[in-house]
Structure formats: structure tokens, C-alpha cells
């Protein structure tokens, strides 16, 4: 129990902070902060598996998040029948061509010895494949995108419940991680960082511009939710009764009947969105707890010890007969898959998929700040990092505004400097993040909750 004292303290403080936001701002804000904290926590757990357990640097988190989001679209949206009718078969043929290319290249790599001839054969396979793809997919994409472009213009998905996408997202991200890992894991740490960052940008570019797949920058909106909708709640009697019971003390004070009805309506509207967010928070919490149990078990298993050995001295681990390359690839896939889950969760929460909003600042670097601030190698630390940093990220702007007003209170309202500062309050969040990261790296390089090695 003693060893968890600082963990409990840190989480208690975090909980109090969120409750304070609930009391002073609104419960709606507090719960949406909580939800995003939980999603961030899943992302940081993924990054922590890679960086904390194995020392692999992955700056491609944005790409895996987006793939998770794409999974949410492809799973939950109903298939667009007309689009499938005009171009579906061509697209499946294209998929077949890509698979065929991959397998024929693998076959060539296996059967023919390394030579110039082999290189030419591979190059010609790629060129022929690309030309075929261009010829087949070109007209098909145009046809698909022409199907009711304002609403659909894409193939749509499977029309299954969106919760499945959390698993599918993990597989998508893991699949990409397999390819990236095969390609880039041999690189030195900082090259790996740059390579993964750029690959994630390529992924985003593809998602943004392949409109037939997920409407690209036109966004997909109105994804089905796993929890009830606010409007339905506001119209259901059981919910109104519940709210009435909950606020009965407050409602009794109001005498006029119409006034009471108005207040009740307002309360129901507020309560419905709080209720929805609570449901989502429950779902997210389940994911976080399951992941926490699994990762914690893994960390203190023989496998976890081996990963730490590989991280701290890969040559020694190699000499002991551990397959460093294979384990690196495995952990790269596992970590990315967890990030993929988070990506799907986020799209589920928002109910929309906006490829244009995936930016490295928010989805890669911020997650890294969370991992480092929280404490790499420690799952509790990583989750805490997700909470603390997301909380600051949201609350930095109001806080900055308060401080600016406080320090410039002697200045008149029309002062140019004051107006300028007040207008730029949102950007103080970057400053907070940067200074926070620098301070932590300097004075507490292992993070708020440092890694603990339990001796067995």
C-alpha cells in the first residue's frame, strides 16, 4: 500500500481538480475534460508501451489515431449501395492488385538471389501495378465520388455498431505499425522519430484526399453513438422524472407552475448532455481499466522484464538469446494498436470524423508531453500524464485569461497591450506545455510518477 501512496495522492489531486471545474465552471465541461483525459490516457498508454517498456520512439501517433478514427467510420456507417454498384467491384479489384503486388514481390525476394535482375523485376512489378491501379481506380473513384457528393460520395462502411470499431481500429493501427516497423525499426532513435513522423503525415494525406474512402476533408458526420442521444432523453418520461426527483429540493422553491416547468426543461437539457457524457465516460473507463490491468500484468511478467532488458541493453539481451528485432516489432505493433483504440474512441465520442483536424502538434507532440510528464515506463504515470496535461491544455486558456486580467487590472480596457494579450490567451496553452515539459525534463526527468522496478 505504501508504495502506492504517491500514486493515490496524485490521482486524488487530479480528481479534486476535475470536481472543482465541475463546481465552478459546469459539469458539462468537467465531464468532457474527463472524457478526453480518458482518451488521452489510452493514447499515452500506447506510447508508453513503446517508449517506456522498449525505448522505441514513435512520433507517428497521429497516424494511428487517424486510422482508428477511419475504422470507426468504416465500421459504423451504413454502406452506400449506389456507390458500391458503380465502383465497388473496381475497388475490390484494386485491393486484389495491391495484395497481388505484395505477394509477388515477396515471392521474387524469396526465390531470386540479390542481383540487379531482381531489382529490375521488383521495379517493373511496382510500375505495372501502379499503372493498373491508376487505370482501374481512376474512373471508379470519379463515379463513386459523384454519388450524391453532398451527403455520401463514398463507399460507406459496414453498418455495424460503432463499438466494434474500437477493435477494428486496433487492427488497422497494428497493421500499419507492422509495415512501418518492418521498414523503419532498424533506424537509429532520432531517424526513427523523423521517419515515423513523416509516415504519419503520409497516412493523413491519404485519408484527407481519398474521398471515396471516407469523404476526405468533407468530413463524415452523424456517426451512430453507442449511448442514447440527448434529444431522445429529453423526450423520455423516465429521464424527466429522474431529473425532477434529483432536483426536487430546488424545484419545490419555485411556486409558479409555468416557471417551474421552464426551469425543469432547462435542467433536463443540461442533465441530458451530462448523462450522455457520463455514459461515454463509463465506457472509456472500462477500456482504461482493462488496458491498465493487462499492461500492468505484462510489465511485471517475464516478458516485461525481457523488454526492459532489451531497452536498457539490447546487445546483452541479444547475447542472452532474445530476439531483439522480433520483440521490437511486436511491441511497436501492440503500442500502436492501443493508440488505434484511442483514435476510434475519440471519433465515437465526437460522433464525427474530420481528417483535417489531425495535426502533429495535438496528436503526436502533446501525447509525448503526456508520456514524459507523467513518467515513462510507469502505467499509472502515463495515465496521470494524460490527465494532467489534457487538463492543463484545456484550462490553460481560462487560467491565462484570469492572470492577464489580474496583472493588467490597473490598465484601462482600451489599452492596446491588454487587448492584444487577452486576444492571444488561447496560445498560452502552448507556452504552458513547453515550459512544463522543459521543467520536468530538467528537474524530474523520470516524470511525476517515476518507473518503479519491483524486485521479485
Amino acid at each position, binding site marked *: 500500500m505504501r508504495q502506492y501512496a504517491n500514486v493515490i495522492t496524485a490521482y486524488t489531486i487530479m480528481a479534486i481538480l476535475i470536481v472543482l471545474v465541475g463546481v465552478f465552471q459546469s459539469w458539462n465541461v468537467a465531464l468532457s475534460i474527463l472524457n478526453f483525459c480518458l482518451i488521452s490516457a489510452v493514447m499515452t498508454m500506447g506510447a508508453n508501451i513503446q517508449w517506456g517498456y522498449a525505448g522505441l*520512439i514513435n512520433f507517428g501517433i497521429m497516424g494511428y489515431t487517424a486510422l482508428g478514427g477511419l475504422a470507426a467510420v468504416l465500421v459504423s456507417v451504413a454502406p452506400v449501395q449506389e456507390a458500391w454498384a458503380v465502383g465497388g467491384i473496381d475497388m475490390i479489384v484494386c485491393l486484389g492488385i495491391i495484395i497481388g503486388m505484395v505477394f509477388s514481390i515477396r515471392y521474387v525476394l524469396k526465390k531470386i538471389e540479390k542481383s540487379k535482375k531482381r531489382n529490375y523485376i521488383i521495379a517493373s512489378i511496382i510500375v505495372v501495378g501502379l499503372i493498373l491501379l491508376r487505370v482501374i481506380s*481512376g474512373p471508379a473513384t470519379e463515379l463513386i465520388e459523384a454519388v450524391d457528393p453532398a451527403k455520401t460520395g463514398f463507399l460507406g462502411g459496414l453498418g455495424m455498431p460503432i463499438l466494434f470499431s474500437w477493435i477494428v481500429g486496433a487492427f488497422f493501427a497494428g497493421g500499419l505499425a507492422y509495415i512501418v516497423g518492418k*521498414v*523503419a525499426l532498424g*533506424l537509429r*532513435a*532520432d*531517424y526513427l*522519430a*523523423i*521517419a515515423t*513522423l*513523416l*509516415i504519419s*503525415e*503520409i497516412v493523413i*494525406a*491519404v485519408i*484527407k*484526399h481519398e474521398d471515396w474512402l471516407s469523404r476526405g476533408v468533407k468530413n463524415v458526420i452523424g456517426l451512430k453513438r453507442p449511448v442514447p442521444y440527448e434529444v431522445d432523453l429529453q423526450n423520455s418520461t423516465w429521464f424527466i422524472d429522474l431529473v425532477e426527483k434529483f432536483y426536487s429540493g430546488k424545484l419545490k422553491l419555485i411556486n409558479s407552475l409555468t416557471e417551474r416547468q421552464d426551469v425543469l426543461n432547462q435542467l433536463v437539457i443540461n442533465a441530458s448532455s451530462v448523462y450522455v457524457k457520463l455514459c461515454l465516460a463509463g465506457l472509456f473507463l472500462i477500456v482504461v481499466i482493462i488496458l491498465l490491468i493487462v499492461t500492468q500484468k505484462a510489465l511485471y511478467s517475464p516478458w516485461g522484464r525481457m523488454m526492459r532488458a532489451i531497452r536498457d541493453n539490447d546487445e546483452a539481451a541479444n547475447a542472452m538469446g532474445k530476439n531483439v528485432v522480433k520483440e521490437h516489432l511486436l511491441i511497436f505493433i501492440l503500442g500502436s494498436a492501443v493508440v488505434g483504440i484511442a483514435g476510434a474512441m475519440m471519433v465515437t465520442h465526437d460522433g464525427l470524423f474530420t481528417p483535417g483536424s489531425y495535426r502533429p*502538434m495535438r496528436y503526436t*507532440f502533446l501525447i*509525448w*508531453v503526456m508520456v*514524459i510528464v507523467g513518467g515513462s515506463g510507469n502505467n499509472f504515470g502515463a495515465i496521470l500524464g494524460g490527465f494532467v496535461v489534457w487538463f492543463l491544455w484545456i484550462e490553460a486558456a481560462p487560467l491565462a485569461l484570469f492572470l492577464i486580467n489580474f496583472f493588467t487590472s490597473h490598465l484601462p480596457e482600451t489599452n492596446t497591450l491588454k487587448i492584444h*494579450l487577452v*486576444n*492571444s490567451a488561447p*496560445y*498560452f*496553452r*502552448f*507556452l504552458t*506545455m*513547453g*515550459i512544463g*515539459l*522543459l521543467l520536468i*525534463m*530538467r528537474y524530474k*526527468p523520470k516524470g511525476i510518477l517515476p518507473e518503479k522496478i519491483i524486485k521479485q
Partner: protein
Amino acid sequence: MDFLNAIILLLNYIIVPALSYGSQLALGAIFVTLIYGILRFANFATGDMMAFGTMFAVLLTWYFQSLGISLGFLPTALITIPFAIIMMILYMLTIDKFVFSYYRIKKSPPVQLAMVSIGVMFVTQALVRIVIGPFDRRFLDGEKFILKAIEFKEMTGLNEGLTIKTTQLITIVITIVVVSILFWFLNKTKTGKSMRAYSDNEDLALLSGIDPKKVVMITWMIAGVLATIGGVLYGLDKSFKPFVYFNNMLPIFAAAIVGGIGNPFGAFLGGYVIAFAEIFITYAYKKFFMYILPESLEPDSLVQLLSTDYKFAVSFSILVIVLLFRPTGIFKGKVL
């Protein structure tokens, strides 16, 4: 005649823009490569540092414009560059003193320094946005074109026009001057040689009496010059927007690695490799083929290898391919 038209078409839409964009990338790439070669870390704050330098140039340009100072047909921003460079160098040296030097003395692994540079990136980005805001700023004044398409058509009687923007010419000229001075400095002067020695083998350089503090300081100063000039030239040519500068970090990194990170000459050429590749692959060649092919063979489609949406993806793919097959870059890296 058709053949000439085709060549002018390529010049106008590919070669001139690629040369100027390549020059801007090249300056940034040399900045990245110098930091990597001498201070030994990948600087993720590159794009934002360039934005920071440019920000001063923009602010000073506005100030000078309000005073009525101008350079005639040249953009006013050119006079502001020296001042902006001084501010930039001061900022860089401050950052180095309070942030990077600690890790350098501790001999932290490069990854940790890269992480620290992310912290610097956040701070710099915040400062730029707080001071000047995140909006698109144009600060170009003076004559916009050196050669207008119509004038060119009248001069030569060709169908295709050739446009050369003032900023494009300025970019190319300034880049050539700056890069020549830099290579002269690195190869001929004693300080430059000591920098190369330090990059090649730190311990040996220390043993032969090279002052590391001086080397580091000079490196940041050169970096400041390159970052500011590269940033201002890009801003003059396109426009100044902090987010775009942050994004430019990616092709700049690609250029530095393609050229062989740690090798300034490689980075210089890498900038052009990336720029030409981006524009070559995303240009629609339909009109070009219309000029050179007989009418019966004229293509129906745009003859575009990839849509312009994938401009960035092209350079990143090149980078990934280079990393796979020649991780040291096209020109062998780490020889400064």
C-alpha cells in the same frame, strides 16, 4: 516553335518555382544539418525558430513602412533581415544557455535532446502566436514581378509566357550568396575548420585545444542567420503563417536526411531534390505533351503522376525510400 513553347512551359511552372522553393528548403536543411552535426540532435523546433526570426522581420517591415522607409522596387523586408538575425541569434543563445547547454554538458543521449527541442518548439510557437498571432500575414512590397507573362510573350512571340517574381529571383540570389559564404567559412577559415573538426570527432577536437563553447556559439549564430534568411525568403515568396512554418519542418527534415544529415552540401542539394521531386511528380503534363506530340497522340487525361494534394507525401516517400536503401543519405552524412 512548339518545342520552345514546351520548354518555356516547364521553366515557368516547374523549374523557376522549384528553384526558389528548393532554395528556401536548402537554407532550412543546412540549419538542421549544422545543429545535427555539431550539437548532435534533431532539432524539432526548426520550423518554429524560422517563424520566430521571420516574425521580427515582419514586425520591423511594418515599422519601417510606417516610417516611410523603403527599398524602391525591392521589398522593404530585405533591410530588416540583419536586425531580425540579431534578435534570432539572441533568442537562440538564450535558449541554448538555459535549456540545451545543461544536457550537452551532461552528455545526454540525442533522443533526450530531441525531446527537449520539442519543449522549445512549444515555447517558440507560443511566443510567435502571442506576439504576432496565428494569421496569414503578407509583408511583401515593392515591385512584384521582374518579368511578366505578357511582356515575355510580346518579347519573344511565343504562346507560353514566362513569369519571374521578384521574390523568386531574390531568393535564388541570396541563397547562392549565403551558401557560398558559408562554405567558404567552413572550408577556409580557422573557425570553420575547428567546427568541422568538432563535428567529426568531439574528443579529438577538445584535445587539440578547440574551445567547445566557441564552436557551439558560432554554430547557433550561423543557424540564426540561416533560419532567419530562409524564413523571410519563404515568407516573402508565399506568406507568413506560423502553422505553415511548423509544417515546413517536415520537408526540411526530409531534405537534410536525403542529402545525408550532418553534411551541409548534401543538405543544400537535398533541398532542391525535394523541391524538384514535389513539383515534377505533381505537375499535370497535359499541355506539355500537347506541344511536343503530334495531334493524334495528344493525351486526354491531365497526365499527372499524383494529384497536388500529395505534394508533401511525395517528399516524405522519397525520404522513406532513401532511409531504407541508403540511410546515410545520397551524399554520405556526418562529415560536415
